[in-house]
């Protein structure tokens, strides 16, 4: 019967192998180096997965770790265990990635529906909401006093006094007519929300 091996023992054995592989890699053995990196990649991926969620972040971190191993492989002393050397490098790169992610999160604002100008199916641009031609037709259809009030005060932007002189209406009558006209227009032009 095959004796059961605990994961911890396997990891230790792996790391002893990794130590030998790294020593050979330092001497220029490319096959040993290839095997080392192939074996180390899934291990550091597991470490990265504990702190990072996004698949891209995890893979980028694994690549950062492999690049760091490559850049400072001359600093590894084969007389010392490989585990602490690798784990420190991995922890630093993972921490860097987490820090960068937090930095970006604090500076990025997710684009939500309320940030969009056209968030409704119906456009909210006033030009399109109220068609110009239709507005003119509706104004022409208003009672005479209301039509004058709108044309003189709202469209030509005359003062109430000037509008009163031109129309021959009193200021009070213009005010009342203008108020009624707006109410009528609102009722006719603005669609009712369900």
């Amino acid at each position, binding site marked *: 019967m095959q004796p059961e091996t605990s994961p911890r023992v396997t990891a230790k054995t792996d790391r002893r192998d990794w130590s030998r592989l790294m020593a050979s890699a*330092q001497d*220029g053995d*490319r096959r040993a*180096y290839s095997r080392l*990196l192939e074996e180390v990649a899934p291990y550091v991926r597991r470490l990265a997965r504990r702190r990072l969620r996004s698949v891209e972040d995890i893979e980028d971190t694994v690549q950062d770790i*492999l690049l760091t191993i490559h*850049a*400072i492989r001359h600093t590894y002393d084969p007389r010392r265990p490989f585990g602490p*050397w690798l784990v420190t490098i991995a922890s*630093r790169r993972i921490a860097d990635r987490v820090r960068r992610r937090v930095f970006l999160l604090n500076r990025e604002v997710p684009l939500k529906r309320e940030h969009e100008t056209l968030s409704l199916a119906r456009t909210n641009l006033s030009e399109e909401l109220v068609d110009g031609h239709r507005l003119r037709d509706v104004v022409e259809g208003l009672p005479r006093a209301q039509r004058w009030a709108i044309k003189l005060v709202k469209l030509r932007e005359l003062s109430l006094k000037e509008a009163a002189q031109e129309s021959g209406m009193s200021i009070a009558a213009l005010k009342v007519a203008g108020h009624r006209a707006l109410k009528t227009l609102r009722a006719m032009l603005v669609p009712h929300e369900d």
Partner: protein
Amino acid sequence: MTTTRDLIRLLVADASAVRRQPPPMLRAGIWIAMAAVLLTIVAATIGVRADLGVKLQDSTFLIEVASAGLTGIAAAIAAFHISLPDRSGRWALLPIPALLLWLSTVGYGCLTNWVGPGPSDLVAGISLQCLETIALGSTPIAVILFFMLRHARFVRPLATAAVGAIAVAGLTVSALRIFHELDATVMVLIWNVGAGAVMSVIGTLLGPRLFRSSM
């Protein structure tokens, strides 16, 4: 985008044999020896202080110079250790006892010289000379140290830069005290503590960038 498998292939293709780095204690020793040689050259060009014979009888002066030098040596050993991934970051604590002793001698000097600080405490001529000594002595040894520790950018860049700066400051200030007659309270305080603090801050701020650009 390069996949991890592709990256491994690229790294393996680039993997020529590398020369293993000597142990950190040996590398620290090499740097300290180089720093001693450079500082001696600076001393030879500037000349030692006239009252050195008298000062060597002064125990406070001796403790101050020795503790600054010890701080430099301990910080150098610490910096070379913490720059490696498989060494504990607690090595950074190594220079603390010597550093405290150094700072306490500066404080003691302040206390004894505090009575009646006159205009002689701030002599521009001396301070400019000292600035020159600091620049002459510390710049080359700092450049060598940052070059020797350039791999630290991947491991503990900030801590290595800060401890490295303390190493440079400790050795430079201990040399400075032998070269210059600078016992005035204010100046001693400025140079001893100020040099250490400024170099630590510069090292901390620029260290990671220096490391980055050198790799």
